[in-house]
């Protein structure tokens, strides 16, 4: 047993590269705080890079992001959450990252939750980790819970993957997942698309409870329940009609 452990540790100590992708569309109010509060070091991570994908923001997001000492990739025009995350994935593929984390720019995630979300991947126990807000939904408005549950059921019906939080913005992906996942969705429906890709490529999904910080700001920015219908139509299209 001890020998096995040594081998494992030596493999990990080769160094894992972590990329934190923060998609940002008009997030000038929260971006500074989100980036400044990110943990400085992670266990088993030797190289860390934070990349803000500015998705055609109309406010000062781009300027602020550039002043924060992080990598900034800027879309000329707004393409939506899926478009921004896809760019983050393309960057990770190009630069050979081992772990990719998606982290919302609206300040709804607790930075302390990043470490537990990475751990299953660093330990090679998962290819995709979902930070689930629904495992401990305290403080989450009831209508949000209803909306997320609705989309969980839709995700299950169409993609045959059960998750307690299909719409979570805090997720981690292994190198295999980074290489296999091909994001076609442009907007919020991307959250469900990840599960479609996971099922298609046999990626192992693990859920980790996370805390969500709901402020009036993040509630305004986030998903609206009325979006469910749009997402549903896109999912049906993706599942049955698109190549």
């Amino acid at each position: 047993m001890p020998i096995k452990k040594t081998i494992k540790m030596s493999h990990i100590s080769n160094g894992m590269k972590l990329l934190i992708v923060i998609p940002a569309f008009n997030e000038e109010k929260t971006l500074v705080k989100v980036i400044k509060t990110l943990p400085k070091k992670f266990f088993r991570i030797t190289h860390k890079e934070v990349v803000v994908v500015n998705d055609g923001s109309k406010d000062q997001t781009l300027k602020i992001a550039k002043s924060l000492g992080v990598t900034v990739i800027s879309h000329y025009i707004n393409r939506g959450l899926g478009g921004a995350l896809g760019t983050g994935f393309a960057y990770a593929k190009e630069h050979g990252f081992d772990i990719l984390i998606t982290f919302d720019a609206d300040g709804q995630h607790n930075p302390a939750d990043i470490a537990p979300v990475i751990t299953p991947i660093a330990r090679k126990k998962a290819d995709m980790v979902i930070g689930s807000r629904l495992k401990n939904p305290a403080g989450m408005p009831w209508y949000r819970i209803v909306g997320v549950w609705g989309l969980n059921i839709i995700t299950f019906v169409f993609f045959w993957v059960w998750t307690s939080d299909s719409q979570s913005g805090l997720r981690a992906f292994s190198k295999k997942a980074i290489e296999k996942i091909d994001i076609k969705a442009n907007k919020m429906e991307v959250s469900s698309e990840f599960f479609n890709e996971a099922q298609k490529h046999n990626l192992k999904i693990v859920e980790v409870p996370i805390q969500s910080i709901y402020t009036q700001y993040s509630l305004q920015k986030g998903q609206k329940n009325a979006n469910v219908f749009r997402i549903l139509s896109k999912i049906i299209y993706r599942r049955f009609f698109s190549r």
Partner: protein
Amino acid sequence: MSFLHFGQLELFNIAPVKVIFTIFVLFAWSRAFLKFRHKSMNAKEIVFWTILWASITLAIYIPGKTTLLANLLGMGRGFDAMILIGMITLFYAVYRLYTKANENEQVITELVRQIALKNGVTKKRNRRN
């Protein structure tokens, strides 16, 4: 009063809807013809549109055509058959448009992404690590 019966040719007793449709067809064809004259349409295309509109105009004046269609489809009334065919055509058109729109959205995203990765990256070493 609106049928052009066989046997008793009532040339001047044409239903207004047929007249309106004929005028519309002429208008549509004239648009195509103008495009052809301005060379934004080639000879093949103008022939296609001319044949299409001409056959539609002819079809308008064939009596009992919808009933014939309904019989072919096993339906009672010609009107029902027309509504059914119209709906199927529209559904298909909507599907085609939806697919095209989605494809275009993806192409635009890919374009924006490639431009961003090529020209829009401001790389800075992370001071924290």
